[in-house]
């Protein structure tokens, strides 16, 4: 059976200074997401996570262009769609939740107007039925007394509540897939847990697939089924969540895992030397080699291709990490 979403060899470049400066923000990214699955996209700022998501919903800034590749949603290639066609796909089949709810909500419209809009356009609800639908959506994201709160405006709500409203809007068009781009970064820890549990419950109820973009490996451990780690515009490792945490193959993934403090453990942390690369001036060979603990001569010259792993997943690295040594915990 074909996956719900299949991204193949996607390349999105930014062209600056009349095309003389090319930033390869997304450079040959392939992955697929099945219905009802949660797919994690992990990486540091500037590694191309967000550009990947914006490419999928075709909301790129004018300086960016999808150079090649395809994005198939239920068999249809989104790259070939016109913007008017995309308008019927966004909200109805793919929805997004962004980091800052205050930026994604319009301060001049009531919560009712904003939650009703996708249901009005995409599902043709009208009148009393529309009202009923909005009430259900707000109740599903656990807004207390939805009847009363839907007349409120975003500024009358707390940060956690606003983000739940954004979740209700995402659900309103009845999408098959929701892209959540760092949805809990601005929330406090206890509110973050509430929100993550809420997303899981919604997923269980509606069977929607989630693409979770984050730099927080803890969120990945909690939420995701499958994970792709991005570095400098490429997916360097993709595995099931357990595979990634227990048998990570790429030195970058392992370095990331070693650099995070763990609760109640006072081991020294591993600091990855150097800093994330400038996408406009990438090093030759593997772009991670200047920071890699295991860099070899080959890594400086030749870019590693994608090796398939036994089982499921793939990795871009020249290093044959032996299965035993890579096992952890």
């Amino acid at each position, binding site marked *: 059976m074909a996956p719900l979403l299949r991204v193949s060899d996607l390349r999105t470049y930014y062209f600056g200074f009349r095309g003389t400066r090319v930033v390869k923000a997304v450079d040959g990214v392939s992955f697929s997401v099945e219905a009802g699955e949660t797919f994690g996209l992990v990486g540091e*700022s500037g590694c191309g996570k967000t550009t990947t998501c914006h490419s999928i919903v075709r909301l790129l800034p004018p300086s960016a262009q999808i150079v090649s590749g395809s994005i198939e949603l239920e068999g249809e290639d989104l790259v070939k769609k016109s913007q008017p066609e995309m308008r019927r796909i966004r909200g109805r089949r793919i929805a997004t939740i962004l980091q800052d709810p205050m930026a994604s909500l319009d301060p001049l419209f009531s919560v009712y107007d904003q939650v009703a809009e996708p249901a009005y356009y995409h599902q043709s609800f009208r009148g009393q039925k529309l009202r009923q639908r909005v009430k259900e959506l707000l109740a599903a994201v656990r807004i207390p007394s939805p009847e009363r709160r839907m007349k409120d405006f975003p500024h009358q709500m707390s940060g956690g509540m606003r983000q739940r409203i954004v979740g209700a809007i995402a659900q309103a068009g009845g999408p098959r897939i929701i892209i959540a781009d760092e949805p809990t970064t601005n929330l*406090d820890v206890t509110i973050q847990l509430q929100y993550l549990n809420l997303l899981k419950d919604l997923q269980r109820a509606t069977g929607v697939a989630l693409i979770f973009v984050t730099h927080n*490996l803890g969120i990945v451990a909690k939420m995701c089924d499958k994970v792709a780690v991005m570095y400098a515009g490429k997916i360097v490792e993709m595995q099931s969540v357990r595979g990634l*945490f227990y048998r990570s193959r790429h030195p970058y993934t392992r370095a990331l895992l070693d650099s995070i403090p763990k*609760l109640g453990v006072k081991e020294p*942390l591993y600091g990855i030397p150097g800093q994330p690369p400038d996408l406009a001036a990438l090093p030759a060979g593997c772009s991670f080699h200047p920071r890699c603990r295991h860099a070899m001569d080959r890594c400086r010259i030749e870019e590693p291709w994608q090796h398939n792993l036994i089982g499921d997943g793939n990795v871009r690295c020249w290093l044959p990490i032996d299965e035993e040594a890579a096992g952890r915990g």
Partner: protein
Amino acid sequence: MDRPLLDVRDLRKHFPVGGSLFGKTRGVVKAVDGISFTIKPGETLGLVGESGCGKTTTSKLVLAAEEPTAGAIEFDGRNLAELSRADLQDYRRQVQVVFQDPYSSLSPRMRVSDIIAEPIKAHEALSSAEVRARVTELLELVGLRPDAARLFPHEFSGGQRQRLAIARALSTKARLVVLDEPVSALDVSIRAHIITLLEELQQRLGVSYLFIAHDLAAVAHVSQRTAVMYLGKLVEVADSLELCTSPLHPYTKALFAASLPSHPDETREEIVLSGEVPSALNPPRGCSFHPRCPFVMPRCSEQEPLLCEVSPGRRVACHLYN
């Protein structure tokens, strides 16, 4: 037993809100409402809590940037309120700060050498050659090359900027540094470096830290003791490892339950708090945590629990333990 470097006793800061210049104020926000803690020389005290709980106000009080409404801060045995102007100036030399966002805490128009030299010039009478030598020494101390001194902040990455902010904080031989979320704004791969650098500097220089953050794992990693704050009050103070392994206060338990797992099969006691942090303008009666507490008892809504010692070095404010 050595004397604490910083001794904070029953510190309060209330902000009047509403009203106009002549009118009566409508109420007070009790941002910090009777907290007490100590920091020993060379020790790190972690301070955790959600936004709006008073962490930042506490740091401002410790930095003498705000005057407390009530309570006392003693530094090295001397009460801040009784210091003369000159002594207060010297206090400010010894207590420095590193902020969360190194993009806004460093002036974009000043060269690194000037940024680091500014506190030195303000507090010490040194010749310019001596200042230059100190700047070079400080840059090396935080792991930057001495030729960084001629550059401007925009020429550095986030992690390097945070190193500059640390160098500036240490430039006047500070004895206490307030670290207000020092790694939250940095990239994941850079955080470990800054945490390790802070730990190394503490070992070399014997400086004390007040480490404020919301990431429990990071706080527990860096600090020997951790204090948990909720709505202007401390609810639990304990050894960091003990706090991680056996949190006592229901709020601390909830915080730990809410912190994310380090691998997919880690199971946690599920404590999902209902609701959100109530407004500090109108805190609940009794224990301010009782409307969200899963273990609430009738007594909690009437009587405020006091922060009592339940075992040596461990204090909890909860009726469950008294």
